[in-house]
């Protein structure tokens, strides 16, 4: 399965078209927040922009943190979210190491589903659907 990647964020102009597209097409909202990808300025506008989006972890800490099974591991990385099982506890967002999960005012979580519908809206080709790298090999042992 492919995942959403952000390989060319240096080109980002901060138009928010990707986030607006995700909110519009996936979540049927007008928003630049309730989306699986969100654009932030990185230390002020003069240093450019960064995308907050799911890195397709496998295993995904957010899925492990979810107490109700609303989050489950997606094949090749990322998560599948069943909103009807979600109790709005916000544990998923707490667990995400890269702040990829947005909680709205009611603590409803919004996370990338790796559908790629944002990609064609980027005018500078910053985004790309790519093959998932598969399970990362992790060195065993060590002090940790």
């Amino acid at each position, binding site marked *: 399965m492919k995942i959403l990647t952000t390989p060319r964020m240096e080109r980002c*102009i*901060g*138009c*928010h*078209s990707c986030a*607006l597209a995700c*909110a*519009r*097409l996936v979540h*049927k*909202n*007008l*928003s*630049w*927040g*309730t989306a699986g990808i*969100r*654009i*932030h*300025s990185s230390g*002020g*506008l*003069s240093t*450019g*922009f960064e995308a907050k989006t799911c890195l397709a972890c496998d295993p995904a800490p957010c899925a492990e943190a979810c107490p109700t099974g609303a989050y489950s591991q997606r094949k090749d990385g990322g998560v599948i979210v069943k909103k009807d099982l979600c109790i709005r506890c916000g544990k998923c967002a707490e667990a995400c190491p890269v702040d990829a999960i947005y909680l*709205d*005012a009611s603590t409803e979580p919004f996370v990338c589903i790796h559908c790629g519908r944002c990609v064609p*809206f980027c*005018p*500078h080709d910053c985004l790309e659907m790519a093959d998932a790298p598969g399970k990362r090999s992790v060195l065993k042992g060590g002090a940790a």
Partner: protein
Amino acid sequence: MIRDHFRVLGVNLTTGRGNMEIVEGRDTVAGGSGLAALLFERHGHPDKPWDDPDQPLIFAIGPLTGYFPLMSKTVCAFKSPYHDQYAESHGGGRSALALRFADYDALVVTGRAQSPSVIAFGSHHLGIIDASYLWGKDIFETGKMLRGLSKGSGHRSILRIGPAGELGSAYAEINVDTYRHFGRLGGGTVMGSKNLKAIVIRGDAAFPLPESKDYQKLFQEVYTKLTDTDMMSKYHDIGTPINMAALNALKMLPIRNLQLTTDQGIDAITGERFADETLLRNAACAGCPVGCIHIGFVRERFAKEHRYIYRQVSYDHEPIFAVGSMLSVMDPFAILAIIDVSEKMGLDVMSAGVALAWATEATEKGVLSESETLVRLSFGDVEAYKDAMEHLGRGTNDFYRLLTQGTLRAAEHYGGKEYACVLGQEMAGYATGEVYFASQALGLRHSHLDSGGYSYDQKETGADVSKAVGFLVKDEQGRGLLTSMVACLFARGVYTDELLTRCLKSIGYGSLAENLGPVSRNIQELRWRMRLGTGFIPEDVTIPKRFYEVSTAKGAVDADFLGGVMREYAKAIRRLSAGAQ
């Protein structure tokens, strides 16, 4: 949020309290320019001066803001320190979407804070924060300090003023998100008079979209039109500075305080040269995939060793004209360095550049000397202009304090009115001829964007007064409707009335969509009523002699034609104001 009324946040800085106001009128004034005029009618005080604490400072968005691409601008309205009359200034950045997602159609600030303050609000919070430590800080320092003040990086808009807005310059800007501005007619000084250093708007709400598929399909159609066709390529590629070479070739570019309209030296500062040599990157207003913001760089060596600072400076046709061709500074990096000082001070670079061009010619003619200007001003002297720009921003002496009230004010005192390049306010970068000169001199905002007079001059031949005035009135009506939506005017070729109708219908504004003709006329009349009601007398507007001396590729300016357009346009404005057009 789609609603048939306006949800307006009022903030009174004297009492330190906010209030929520529900205002009817969606189907008669739409939003943006129309809403701003309506709010000024409700909250403004025509008989009180611009700096009376009761006067409102208004920011308004429109029904399509955020719902469609390039619906990305905010209208700012106030009684102007430049002419003490109703004024509008438009800006982009993230301001429009931040207001949308803060869930307000407009913000109205009244009162005067006891000490320098910042207003910070979003959909769930409102606060007035003491910011005495920011007073006196320039635009760059202020921006850096404010970033730590609120959450929401990327989803907030920071509107701020620099020293020029604090000291009372008639053309101090409101900086928006570093690279955009409510530039003209002194909105920054209105903020300063209220002890308001900055406004931080956090867009933290989300709204459900219409369930019908019409909206989604139409969004895609508009998006494709704006990005896949070449309609916007001018703005996406070289940007507005592409006008430099084109106007120079037509002998329509103001050069050397409008002593010339063409010069071979312009070849060094064309949009193409800026793009090839200075362009670092582009940026966009939120909600606009075109990304017309062009950001160049300034690199300055500050030590004998190889030690440098660099700054990023946004550029457009207008700043390049104002501190480039008008000052005969024919080097892109030098132009960016002067723009940079203007940005730092929080000045409207167009007005400041034209003011310094007048001061330079006045120096050449012996009207001014270094005892007034502190540095010797001569065309092309970059270092002197950087110093002078800072003096202007900080109001260093009586001369600069007067010059920052407007070029004509200084010329009235020192002499040299005949070569003050003022058309209602300091001119914009078009010396296209009679119709443009009349259009800026009499236009509601005194902006080159009020109507396409510059385009009329380039396309039309002949001296048909009635045809020219008919064009100005009709074009202004169309643009006023767009700035009530609020569209970026660069998208005016895409957003026809027919497309606006479809857009409005697709999100549930059916009744507004069906009445765009009467609504646009109502907006036009309302805006002119505010303008004339605060003291504008169109018949009294005169055009300095310099404009009559201009020669373009079409030939010398026709004084009779210009006079005729001025007279008839003034009459048309009277009729509009009376609702009798």
